[in-house]
Each structure stands twice: as C-alpha cells, then as structure tokens.
C-alpha cells in the first residue's frame, strides 16, 4: 500500500515571508505521526495546505495518492480535521454545531456522538459563546471523532483541555489507532505525542529538521557525562564529539555525542579515570536543542 500522506519539497510564501521552505515527510497507513515544532514553525500552514485551504507555491503534496488542491473534495470525504483554535458560532449550541459538522461531513455515527459527549462531559445545550476554550475544543474533537475516516488530522488538539480530558482524548485516539487508521498529530509539546506516535517529524522555521521513530531520535541525542581524571581533564575539550565543556578543578561535565562515545572513552582512559557518570539523553533535551537551534 502507498503512503496516506506524501509531502515532498513543499514551499509556501505569504508576501515576502517564506513560511515553508522545504517540507518533506510521509504518513504510512496505520501510522501515527507526531508533527512537532515551536510556535510559528509552520505546522498549521502545512496542515492548511494538506486541506486545500491554502495553495502551495511549490512541491508535491498528496493524500491517498491524490493532489490536495485539485482533488480536495475526494480527499475530504475520507478525512477528519480539528483545528488548533476551534472557533464557533456564538448563537448556536454545541449540540447543534456537532450535528451540523456530522451532516456536512457525512457518515457520522450518532451513537458514538452521544457516547463522546458524555465522555468529554460537554453540555450540548449551551450556546457556544458561553464555552471556554477547552469546551470549544471538545466540540471540534467530538465532531471529528464521531465520523469514520481513514485519516485524522489534529492540530494541537488538546490545547485548553484539562489533564483528565487530555487523557480521555489520548484513549480515544488510541482506539482509532488500533482500528488501523492513520493519524497526523501536531503539537509543540513532546509529551502530547510521545505516548501515541510511531514516528516524529520535527519542523523548525519552515524546514523539517528531523524525522524518525522515537528510538532513532533518542539515539541521535547526546548523553551528559561527568568525568574526574588524574591527568589534566582540560585535554578532553579537544576530543571529537564533546560539547558544552565545563571544568571545576579536575572534574568536568560535558555532553557527549553518542557516535563518538568510543573515542571519548579511549581518550579519557589515557588520563586515568577516577569517576565516570553518564546520564542518558531525554527527548526533551533533543527538542530543546532543535528549538533553540
């Protein structure tokens, strides 16, 4: 089977501002992809291009093997989408809006709708102008999760939800994942996608800077090493793969690139190791590294 989403060399300009420079990634069938990047990196712009809301300047973007701009309607029959900022008509109730979305999408499941309204503890009789941010988000999520689609696109779906509701959302997405659907989940927080994602795509300033499974990415990250030697520990600063070197007396702390671990150990042993501690990398460090750039 071919990729569900295929983005290749996507570019988009708004006036003079190059919002997307080079975006390339795929979503395979049955895969959950975490789409991560800081605010303003181009996540929502990419997603809007995928939905045919805006038109790309260059590149190849396909969903289900169809062009996202020309065949947007065919594609839309088989996808569900929740924007990051769900904005609703103040004069309609949550229940009315959910019904409207189901109808306009086609093929909504009324039972699932009622089940989700109960699960997310939404009051469907309230006018939308009285909803908080989290409640508006629930309306969008319930509408998207109540329809049967092949691809689900969530743009920062849990912003404004309390931790309990966030957990319920994760559970519901897990159910969809188990039934073999593809999911694109964008977020600026790693922990939001860590539990669900098979693959992570990191975007920064309109470019994809990292793609891979979580394990792959962990491997790429650096360990933090604390080293005490008999000889002059300052020698270590010259070794390949040593970064952020800090020294106090004969003890040094640095981050070590996992690729150069062997070389680092060999050099350290020449100096006579008295103490060696290594803290494995956290993904958070990796992301911070990309965010700070």
């Amino acid at each position, binding site marked *: 089977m071919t990729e569900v989403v295929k983005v290749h060399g996507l570019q988009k300009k708004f006036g003079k501002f190059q919002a997307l420079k080079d975006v390339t990634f795929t979503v395979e069938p049955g895969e959950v992809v975490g789409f991560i990047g800081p605010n303003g990196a181009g996540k929502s712009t990419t997603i809007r291009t995928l939905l045919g809301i805006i*038109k790309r300047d260059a590149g190849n973007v396909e969903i289900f093997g169809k062009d996202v701009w020309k065949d947007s309607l065919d594609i839309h029959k088989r996808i569900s*989408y929740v924007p990051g900022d769900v904005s609703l008509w103040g004069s309609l109730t949550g229940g*009315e809006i959910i019904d409207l979305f189901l109808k*306009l999408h086609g093929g909504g499941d009324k039972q699932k709708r009622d089940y989700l309204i109960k699960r997310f503890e939404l009051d469907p009789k309230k006018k939308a102008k009285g909803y908080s941010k989290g409640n508006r988000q629930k309306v969008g999520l319930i509408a998207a999760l109540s329809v049967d689609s092949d691809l689900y696109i969530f743009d920062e779906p849990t912003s404004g939800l309390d931790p309990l509701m966030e957990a319920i959302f994760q559970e519901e997405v897990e159910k969809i994942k188990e039934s073999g659907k593809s999911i694109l989940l964008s977020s600026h927080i790693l922990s939001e996608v860590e539990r669900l994602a098979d693959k992570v795509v990191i975007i920064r300033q309109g470019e994809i800077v990292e793609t891979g499974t979580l394990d792959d990415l962990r491997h790429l990250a650096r360990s933090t090493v604390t080293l005490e030697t008999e000889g002059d520990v300052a020698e270590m600063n010259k070794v390949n793969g040593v970064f952020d070197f800090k020294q106090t007396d004969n003890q040094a702390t640095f981050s070590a690139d996992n690729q150069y671990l062997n070389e680092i150990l060999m050099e350290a042993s020449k100096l006579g190791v008295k103490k060696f501690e290594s803290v494995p990398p956290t993904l958070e460090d990796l992301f911070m590294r990309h965010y700070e750039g």
Partner: protein
Amino acid sequence: MKEKFSRWDILFVQYLKRDWKKIIVWVLGLGLFSAAYVPAFEEITKGQGLLGMYETLQNPAMISMVGPTPIETAADYTLGAMYAQEMVLFCGLFAMIIAVLHVISHTRKEEDLGLTELVRSFQIGRQANSLAVISETVIINVLLTLFIWGVMMSFGADTISAEGSFLFGASVGMAGVIGAGIALVMAQIMSTSSAATGSALGIIGLLYIVRAGTDVSNVGLSMINPLGWTYLTYPFTENNWSLLICALIFSIIVVTIAFALEGARDMGAGYLPEREGRERAKKSLLSVRGLFIKINKGVIIGWMIAFVVMGAAYGSIYGDMQTFLESNEMMKQMFTHSGVSIEESFTGTIMMVMTGLVSILPIAIINKLFSEESRLHLSQLYATKVTRGQLYWTSIGLAIIAGFVGILLAAGGLGGIAITAMGDSSTMNIFDFLAAGYNFLPSVLFLTGLATLALGWAPRLGRVVYVYLGYSFLLNYFGGILDLPDWFSKTAIQSWIPRMPMEDFDAPIFIAITVISIALVIIGYLGYSRRDMIEGA
C-alpha cells in the same frame, strides 16, 4: 462611589493616548465635513440661487430628508439659514453614529474580548471604564464643536455669525453626546457588541425616520424627538439654545440609567434573558444554506423591519403634498408646467434613496462570508465535502434574495401607506410603486457584485463597497443641489438609472447593468475558488 469609579482618570488618560490618531481623524474629518462647505454654498446663493433653493427645500421630500427651516418667505432666506437647514441634521447624524461605534468599541467590545476582565483585576473601579469612555467622548465632541466654530468663522461669510457658528458646532457635538449615551445604555442591555451596535444604530435610524414624518406633518412633534434637539436649534436664524439644554438633560439621564444598569449586572452579562439552547440541531440547520440563514438571520430580520418602517414613514408624507402645493403658487406652476405630479417626482427620488439603503443588506451578507473566514469559523468546514462554490453561491443567493425582498418591502411599504394617505386623489397604484422600486434592482445587484469581486480577489476591501455606496448616496444627494458635470455624477451607479415613474423605464440600461453585475459575480468566483483562505487575519 469611590469603589465604583476608582482610578477612572488613569483609564481616561490611557484612552486619549491610545486613540489620539482616531481622535484627530474624527475631529478633522467630521469637522471639515460639517464646516468647510461654506464657500460652495456661497456659490449657490448667487443670483436667484437662494430663492430657488428655498423653493426646492420647501418640498416635503426634501424636508423629510434634511429637515425644515423656520424662515417663512423666500426673501428672508439667507446663506446661514440654508447652510443650517442642509447640514445640521446630517452632520449630527454622523456625529452620533461615530460616537456609538466608539463607545461600544471601548465598552461591550472590550468585554467580549476579555480585556475588561484583565483591567478589572487591577485596582480599577467597576464602572471606571464607562466613566472614562463617556468622558473621552464628551471631550472629543467639545473639541469638534470648537473646531467647527473656528472653521466656519474663518470664512468670514455673510450671515455666518459667531453665535450661529458656535451653535451649529454645539448642535453637532451634542448629537455626538446623545449618541454616546444611547450606545452606553445598549452596551448594558445587550450581551454582545454586535447586538449593542446594531440596536443603538437602529434606535438612531428610527429617530431619523420618525422625525422625517413629524417634520413634514407637524414640526412641533419633532420637538419631543432627541434628534430634534440638535437640528431644530436653527443656527444662524432663531439660534434656539434652549433645545441644547433639553439634549444635555436627556444625555445626563440616559448616562445615569446606563450606570445604574451597569452597576446591577455581572460582567459579560446583559439584560436580555438567555434561554437554554437545543441539544440537537433542527433539520433546517443541517446544510450550508441552513447555516448561512441562521447566522445572518438577525441582520436580515432587523433590516427587513427597517425597510418596511422606512417605506411606511416616507409613504405617510404623501397625504400632505397636495396641501403643500396649494399653498405655494410657484411650486404649483412648476409641477403643472412639467406635467409630472409632485407625488411622482417624490417617488422617483425617494426610491433611489431607499434602494440605496436596501443595498446595505446584500453587501453585509457577502462581507459576512469573509468575516466568517477570518474568524476561523469555517476551518473545520473546509475539511468536509463542502466546496468553496457551495459557500460562495449560497452567500450570493441569499444576498440576492435579500435585495429582492428588501425592495419589495420598502417599495410596498411606501406604496401601501402612500395610497392610503392620498385616498381618492391617488394617481398611482401599488404596481407603479413596485415598478419604481424594482427599476433600481440593477443598482442593488451592481453593489452586490462589487462586494463579491472584493470577496474573491481582495477580501479586506469588502468594506470599501460601503464607502462607494456612501459616496454614490452623497453624490445623488448633493447632485440635485450643486450643478455637477455629467461624467462626475455618473460615477454613482444610481445616476445611470432613470427615476420612474417621473421618467421612462430604460430597458437597455437595466439589462446592461444586470449583465455587468453577473459578470462581477462570476469574476469574483474565479478569485474565490483559487485564493488562499485567510484565517485569523
């Protein structure tokens, strides 16, 4: 007291800082609009001009639009008297509208946006904001008064006296203060800024229409209309200052009521009860058309009522026309000579005015689609099988139907009441009125077409269509008074269309403008189906 208004002065200074550019444009723009036409009017008064203007402005149609004059013989008519009759009411109306928009943007709008919540968390009194805004608006209108006074005096024209100029400025400024008071009350009663703006402007519109009727039938009745306390001061002639005192007292009462209402409500709440909504959507909502009808419903119903009331108000004047003609030998001769009855002449002019106002509704419906887009309301809809074509053509369809029904209600309201008012002496039947109304259908379609063109290619310019409508309106309004070159008056779309029943129906023009309008709509669609959706702009 201290608790309520604590530190209002900080907010007041803050508003002046935030708004200084707006204040300059407001005072200069409205001030020049009010005062700077003196030389132009001086031109008109040359030769027999003043006499002719006096007769023209004695026509009930003109009085219903611009207001009366206390002068009883043409010989006593002066430049000052004419300037006041033509300008005070309109300038006052503008001052009111701007004040309404300003007051609501700093009160209910900020409450909607959550800014008030933030401000109230500081050591600021609960009602300090309202006091600051109303003080700011009063100051602005005082500045406006002084500015108008200064500009008018600077021309040194005959009969434009210092006292009259000051009263003229003060009448316009006082209109602004009344508008601010009305807005502040509506900002308390309504629970959203759009409802507050709509209802405040609606009240002003109603006052204007009511005074159109009373000015023609019995000016005394206009004296109990708050709007009457501005233009009935008759600057340069009677200089009736006492009416401004009425207006001042009225404003103080209204503002006091607003403060009482505000003091008794919770932040974010209004006074109209909020009902519990439906759990499930009605079937009629479940389509793009159903949704668009629902979200435009308030605006459509509001305007439709306004159209009927407007038509009926103008229609009620017809009964007095013959009486007026009996009393005025010169006008009587003029009408007998041209072979057109005064009623027919009035119908042609007033239809143009009314269809101009009817155009606002379709433009608003078209512009609504872009405001929905930029407010992210449609984000989730784009990802469904709803096409852009569905969104576009549904809006167009709704707009055109609204225009069609709008004309029916305005022309029908006018005709129905006019025929009743004229009784047996009526020379026109209801179909004459409807024909005169639908004669202007192409101009409504054209303005709708302009709005769709903007929607497709430059959606941020959607509001400019209102500016063009206002421009056309003013051109047609002053066109009859000033002798404008033909090409210039033809830049207003309504100028192309003959004024039925006074003039004959022009089929080629009717068809040509309709075809151009359809072309605009199609060109607009080409843009709309291709462009990026602008979200959050």
